[in-house]
């Protein structure tokens, strides 16, 4: 398989594939972070996560169209506004969902799975009715297009760098919120002992709602970032849900670090394999490996050994 390439080409292959893997990695991390928070911290399976993401993408699309027609001067920076709006929109819908649906089902994780699947169908149809069945494209400002040549065979796309930077930023922010802020402490307290947390005066309902909202909000930002590399259609979200769940489960559901490590290994495996075999087979082998490893080590890569 290496025979057709010269040594310097192989070098470039690995650098560029590595970079392609990093972009995939960023996309996975962005999508998985929100899910990891919701699943890891609350034990809720949110099958509508992909739709929350797509909501963020549609908000970005709307913002782009609005800015383009009304404030063309600001077009080069609209993306940042769009991301903030995406966060707010998905987060708000998430909190509404928690209030209307999820909070009745905390003791029945399999039922949340079915209910949120129902929600995802409704959201899909809503997107279709509002935005049409066709994918919408978001126009990017000029500075985000193109690529930076590093050598004559190695080039790095600018939007890829942007997505990666965004990923780092959001990950750090989430880590800070969960591990450093007062609210994060409350979240962790509720995770460990709901009754006790309630007894010491933590408003557990509010914590749940905000946690769910945060998770969904991050999904919205992910969707917003995703418009740079992919398409936005009513059913785009569904394509990612299994991949994202596998990232979270493979990483060990309760661990933020695990999610990142697992996103990294999965994305690098897939993008490297893709180079040497067909996209379908690369995907099959990647998924199969994850499932096989999960069968041998169900707790995922990183898991705390706790007394149950």
């Amino acid at each position, binding site marked *: 398989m290496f025979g057709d390439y010269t040594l310097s080409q192989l070098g470039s292959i690995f650098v560029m594939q590595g970079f392609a893997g990093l972009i995939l990695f960023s996309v996975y991390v962005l999508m998985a972070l929100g899910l990891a928070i919701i699943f890891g911290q609350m034990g809720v399976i949110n099958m509508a996560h992909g739709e929350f993401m797509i909501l963020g993408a549609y908000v970005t699309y709307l913002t782009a169209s609005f800015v383009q027609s009304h404030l063309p001067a600001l077009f080069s920076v609209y993306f940042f506004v769009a991301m903030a709006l995406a966060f707010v929109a998905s987060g708000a819908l998430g909190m509404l969902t928690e209030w209307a649906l999820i909070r009745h089902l905390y003791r029945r994780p399999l039922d949340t799975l079915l209910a949120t699947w129902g929600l995802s169908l409704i959201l899909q149809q809503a997107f279709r009715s509002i935005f049409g069945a066709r994918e919408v494209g978001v126009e990017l400002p000029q500075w985000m297009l193109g690529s930076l040549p590093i050598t004559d065979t190695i080039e790095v796309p600018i939007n890829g760098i942007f997505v990666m930077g965004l990923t780092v930023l959001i990950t750090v922010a989430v880590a800070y919120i969960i591990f450093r802020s007062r609210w994060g402490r409350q979240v962790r307290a509720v995770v460990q002992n709901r009754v006790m947390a309630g007894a010491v005066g933590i408003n557990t309902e509010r914590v749940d709602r905000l946690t769910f909202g945060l998770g969904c909000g991050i999904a919205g930002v992910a969707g917003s970032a995703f418009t740079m590399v992919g398409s936005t259609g009513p059913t785009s979200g569904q394509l990612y849900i299994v991949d994202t769940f596998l990232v979270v489960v493979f990483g060990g559901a309760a661990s933020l670090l695990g999610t990142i490590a697992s996103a990294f290994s999965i994305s690098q495996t897939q993008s490297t394999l893709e180079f040497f075999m067909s996209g379908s087979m690369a995907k099959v082998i990647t998924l199969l490996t994850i499932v096989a490893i999960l069968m041998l080590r169900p707790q995922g890569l990183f898991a*705390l*050994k*706790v*007394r149950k």
Partner: protein
Amino acid sequence: MLIGQQPKDFLLSVEGLTVSFDGFKAVNDLSFYVDENEIRVIIGPNGAGKTTVLDLICGKTRATSGSIHFRDRDLTKMRENEIVQAGVGRKFQTPSIYDDLTVFENLEISFPRGRSVLGALTFKRDAEVRERVHEVAEMIFLKDRLAMRADLLSHGQKQWLEIGMLLIQDPELLMLDEPVAGMSVSERVKTAELLHRIIEGRSVLVIEHDMKFVEDIAHKVTVLHQGQILSEGTMDKVKNDPKVIEVYLGH
């Protein structure tokens, strides 16, 4: 590990047992031995590792190191159901019964026959089963509640039912985790009477806080503190051990 030493003389020999959760040693290098027909009570303050010891013996928790021999079989290498089939029965702290089934069915499921998948499929509710269920039901004061769904029982009755479910297994070693906790006074009296009857002819390992109850039944008492044995011996010896007094009264 103690190579060469055959812990055959004891029904249960626990040696060098250690388990750690993320570095925290809940049980630390614990060794003790239980004779045939001995009633052993484990006491100790909260967090001493009492329940963990039972968990380790019945296979619910896996030991980090050490061995647990039941007769000549190493329980640390066996699955929970194999441990039960070897003759170890366990009652949980909170009543653990099947709410959706009737009292009869609860007992029937615990009857030690047809435990494989095929066995369960072809299991027949024959005279032997019925007799045994009735016999046990009578013992646990639930004779006239056999057709009732278990979730309708009172807390004390649920405890009895679980004891009955163990009884029908007829284990050689019976482990009880706080069998009288949360019971009314009258239930407590009845339970003590029940326990007295069922501990005959088998070894029993009991965790209990009720000192009067402990004094009443214990052959030997083991005091656990921070995962280690603080003291061991007869109730009198333990009561007068200064280390025990220190731990129980010192703070």
